[in-house]
């Protein structure tokens, strides 16, 4: 005998409790979307309050986390995006061609960059990863963070960002390519791996076979 969905089904108090349960996850995302802890707090607060006020539009039984993240994403996109200058950190990130065609990583290097027995990068690379994520262009970062930090599906991310799924997938792909290249460079600088040249042991990733042979 569950009552039919009703716009006033949740009191402010009841819904507040639900939101509080999502606050850590929202903060985790906000922290990756914004560069500054204070700004992340503002963003989460704004989004949480919006969610509370709009609770009548939440359909009970549907995914609250995805709904809240949608509000968070929109709040971020509409009010917290950084200025245009900072978005050029990754040169050529918006070009149609793969911007990191030259950075390829061999299987051996990839193995050296992660922990042997764990599903994790080497600690020195984890810090670099966080920095690199901060510097991704907004569109790439939002898609990647929703995918990796909160593990939303491509479809949910597409709904959050108001873009087609194909766009989401290509943004996530590009974001990872950019991050991979940053990690590779950092690993070389840290002496974890050696600078490799195309064709040493395996076929390079992200490079055409013709180039690889030549």
């Amino acid at each position, binding site marked *: 005998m569950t009552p039919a969905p*009703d*716009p*006033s089904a949740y*009191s*402010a*108090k009841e819904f*507040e409790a639900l*939101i*509080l349960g999502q*606050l*850590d*996850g929202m*903060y*985790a995302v906000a*922290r*990756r979307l914004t560069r500054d*802890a204070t700004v992340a*707090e503002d963003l*989460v*607060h704004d989004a*949480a*309050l919006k969610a*509370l*006020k*709009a609770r*009548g*539009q*939440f359909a009970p039984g549907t995914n609250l986390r995805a*709904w809240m993240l*949608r*509000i968070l994403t*929109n*709040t971020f996109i509409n009010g917290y995006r950084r200025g245009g200058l900072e978005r050029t950190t990754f040169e050529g990130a918006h070009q149609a061609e793969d911007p990191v065609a030259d950075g390829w990583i061999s*299987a051996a290097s*990839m*193995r050296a*960059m*992660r*922990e042997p027995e764990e*599903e*994790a*990068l080497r600690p020195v690379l*984890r810090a670099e*990863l*966080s920095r690199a*994520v901060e510097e991704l262009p907004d569109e790439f970062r939002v898609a990647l*963070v929703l*995918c*990796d*930090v909160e*593990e939303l*599906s*491509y479809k949910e991310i597409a709904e959050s960002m108001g873009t087609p799924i194909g766009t989401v*997938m290509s943004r*996530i792909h590009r974001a*990872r390519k950019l991050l991979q290249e940053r*990690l590779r460079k950092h690993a070389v600088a840290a002496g974890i791996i050696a600078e490799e040249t195309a064709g040493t042991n395996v*076929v390079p*990733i992200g490079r055409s*076979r013709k180039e690889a042979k030549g």
Partner: protein
Amino acid sequence: MIAEAATRTCRDIERALEAYVDGELDASCVLAIDAHLGSCALCSERVAFAASMKRSLRTAAHAEAAPASLRARFARAAEELARDEELGAKVVPLRPPAAQAHASSDVSPSERGHVSPSERRAAAGLEPARQPPSWRSALPWAAAAAAAIAIGGSMRTLRSGQPGAPANDVATASFASARTQLLEELAGQHARPLPPEEIDPARVTKVFSPIVGVPVRPVAFANVPMNDPWAFAGARLMAVRDEAAATLYYQNHGGTRVTVFVFDANRIAIRSACCLAARLVRVGGEERTIHVGHARGYPLAVSEHDGVGYAVSGDLKEPELVNMAANF
């Protein structure tokens, strides 16, 4: 050659590997990828590396919990909101207790917290079968309804949008179309008026002013034919954003309706919130700017006087409403 064919496969499945790590592949694709991974060290390492990146990012992000200051701040804001809603629902009866006693217990929209469109139509006497077409001729009913429909109930209904709206409209509703939404709400209140909470024009100022925050007075109409004046047909509160506006209903003998919204112009910035066009109107020797917009097929005219905002919508043409607003 065999090696080259194998690497071509590896290149072809690069995107699929990513979807594999993200758990986006269906079962048959997963099996196909698993089969390849079983015999390809390179792709296995790619998957392991991609998974490590994904996991590291997630772990780092979740290392910090939401700070206590954020929790406290949100709890405070939520408490404020809950108190406002509770105040609206319980403490502000617009009718004196005597009138509430007349309210029959089966009038329950406020208990359910929202009024369905059909209830609204029925309550407003707009069902074809219902007789009294005017609130003025339906005083007992109006008194009962006024007591029964608490402000909080209607505020909640209006604030949370359409009951049937799909959840994923939230984002768009709250952000992208915030501008037109305000006009929509006002025009919607004219199109499907909720029953009045006060039907005595003499009491309007006393009852509504403290809640709205500016003097709410029944408006005067200019250039009205003597034989067909605009008659006051009741008033009620309406939530606009998080602020209260007074809604004044007027009607003439011909059944033409006009709805006037009175609000604190400093708190509800309709003119800047909506994309309105400006019209210059000469009143007396003075030029006044009236802003106009349209929603749901109704024109809306907005004017402002000493911090008091007026918006008028009605079954009239835009110039008539502009002229009306210019004379408030």
